[in-house]
C-alpha cells in the first residue's frame, strides 16, 4: 500500500532485552540515537524484557537479545546484535538515510 506524500510514517519498534544490564542500556541508547537523528520523532520504542515476559519472547520467536523488531511500516524487519552499526540499522529498518539537522545548524 502506497502512502501519500502528505502522510507521515511512524516506525513502531520493539526492543527485546534481558534485564537491566549494561548490554540493554547500550542497545536502547544506540536505537534511540538512530531514531532521534533520522526519524524526527516519528517513532515509538517498546522495550520487552524477556526475563519479565518470557511468554511473549516465546510467542514472538525471539532466539536471542538484543533483538529489534520493526512492526511498522511494513514489511516487518528483525535485527539482532550490535545496534551501533548505524548504516546497517538504517538500511535494515528501512529508515531514510537523511540525517535530521543538528540544533546548532537550525539556529544558524
Amino acid at each position, binding site marked *: 500500500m502506497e502512502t501519500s506524500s502528505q502522510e507521515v510514517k511512524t516506525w513502531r519498534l520493539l526492543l527485546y532485552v*534481558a534485564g537491566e544490564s549494561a548490554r540493554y542500556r547500550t542497545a536502547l541508547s544506540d536505537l534511540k540515537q538512530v531514531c532521534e537523528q533520522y526519524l524526527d520523532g516519528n517513532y515509538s520504542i517498546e522495550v520487552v524484557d524477556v*526475563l519479565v515476559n518470557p511468554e511473549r*519472547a516465546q510467542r514472538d*520467536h525471539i532466539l*536471542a*537479545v538484543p533483538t529489534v*523488531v520493526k512492526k511498522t511500516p511494513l514489511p516487518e524487519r*528483525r535485527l*539482532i546484535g550490535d545496534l551501533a552499526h548505524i548504516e546497517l*540499522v538504517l538500511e535494515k529498518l528501512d529508515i531514510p538515510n537523511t540525517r535530521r539537522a543538528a540544533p546548532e545548524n537550525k539556529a544558524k
Partner: protein
Amino acid sequence: MTRSKEGIIQPAISRQPPAEMEDKVTDLSRLEQMVEERTAALNALNLKLIKEMTVRKRAEKALKATLADFRNVITRSADGVIITDREGRILMVNPAAEVLFHRKPGELTGTMFGFPLALERAAEIEIVDDSGVSAIVEMRTVATEWEGKNAYLATLRDITTRKQAEESLRQDETRLRLLLGQMPCLLWTTDTDLRHTSSSGAALADINLQPDQVVGMTMAEYLNTSDPQNVVIAAHRRALAGLPVTYEFFNPALGKTYLSHVEPLRSLEGEINGVIGVAFDITENKQAEARLLALSRRLVEVQENERHAIARELHDETGQSLAISKIMLDRAIKSLPETMTSGLREIQGILTQLIAQVREMSLNLRPSMLDDLGLLPTLLWHFERYTSRTGVQVNFTHDSLPAQLPMEIRTAAFRMVQEALNNVAKHAGVSSVDVRARVESGRLSLKVEDHGAGFDPAAVTPTSTGLNSMQERAYLLGGELMVDSSPGCGTCVTAELPLPELKGEHHGQETA
C-alpha cells in the same frame, strides 16, 4: 602457392600452366592440400576444446568438493554457525548452533533469526530460552553466498564462562582497587631483572610518587644502592628463587620504616617471571613501639630503684631503730628486778621478731648484695634461703659468667631465676631443681629445669605464674624467654639475654 593477408590460399601468380591437362591435375592437387590443411586446423581446434572442457569439469568437481568441505567444516564446527538470507531468515544452521539454542535438528531452518548485526566487530548477544538467558554468545558476521544467493554467515561462540570469569575478575579488581585506595601500602611488581613493572598504592602519595612512576627502574636504581647484599634486593632475589620473604626495611632517605612482604610472581604456566611485593608504612608503629619499650624499661628501673630505696630504708632506718630499741630494752631489763621484767621480756621477744621480719622484707624487696657483690654471690645466697624455706634442693652449675654485668642484666637475671624457682616450689611438686647459668656467644643463658608436674603453656593465662613478667624482662633487654613444658613431663624455663661487650676478667666485679 601463397597465402593472402586474410589467410586465403591462392595460386602463385608467376607460374603459368604448361598445358590444359596439367592445369586440371594441378588444381586437384591444390584442392586436396587445402582440405588437408583445413582438417588439421579443425583437429587442433577440437583438441583445444576437449582440453578446455576437461579443465572446466575438473574445476566444477573441485568446486563441488570445496562446497562439500565447506558444509562439512560448518557441520563439524564447535562454534555455532547460522547462515541467513538478507532479511535474517535462517537458511542453514549447524548442530552446535542447534545445541546453543536448545532446538532439535532442522527445527530452526526457515525461521526468522534476524539480520545478524556484527559485520565490523563482534557483538555480544544473549541466547533466550524458556527459563530466561541460557548463554552469552559472541557473534561475528560475514557476507557470503549460499546456493547462488547473497547471504550472511554468523558464527556464535559461547563465552558464558569467559564472561563470568571476567565479571569475577572485575569484582576482584574493584575490591583490590578499593583496598589499595584506602590502605596505606605500596604494591609493586618486578620482572626477573628486578626492574619495576608496576607500582601502586595509597602510600605512594606519602613519598611523592605517582602510580607506575618507577616502572622501568631497577630496584637498585630505586634504592640508589650498588650493594647486592641490600636487605630489599636480597629479599627479592630469594623471592625469585621461589621463597616468600617478610622483612623490615628502614629507608634513611625517607626516614620511614616499612614492613614488606615479597613473593614470586608466576606465569600461567607456573614459571617465576618476577616478584610481587607489598609494603606497609610502620614508621609510627615503630616509633610508638620504641616509646613503649623505653617506658617499660624506665618502669622496671623505677620499680627496682624504689624497691632498693625501701629495702635500704627498712634495713638502715627501721631495722637500725628496732635494733637500738632492743639494745636499750635489754639494758633496762638487766637494770630492773626480775619481778618487774616479765612484760618487758615479752616486748623483747616481739622486737626480736620484728627485727627479723624487717630484715627479711628488706632482702625480699631487693638483696643489697646484688648491688654490692654481684649476680653469682646473690644467686648462691638466694638458693640457700630458698632451700631452707621450701625444702627444694637447688643443683646449680655455672660457667664463664663474666666479671662485669650491667645492673639491668643482673637484676633481670636474678628476678627471672627467683620467679622460676618460686613457680617450682608452688607448682612442680619436686624435691630438687637444676639451675644453670652460662655465657655463650655473647649471651647470658639461664636455665631452670625440674622434672615435676609440668603444665600446658598454651593454657596459661598471660597474668599467671609470673611468666609474663619474666618474658617482659627478657624482651626489654632484647632477649627472649622460652618455656618448654607439658603436663607430667616437668618444666624447663630458659632465658637468653644478649650481653653488651664486657671489659675485665671473669668472676671480677660487676658494674653498677
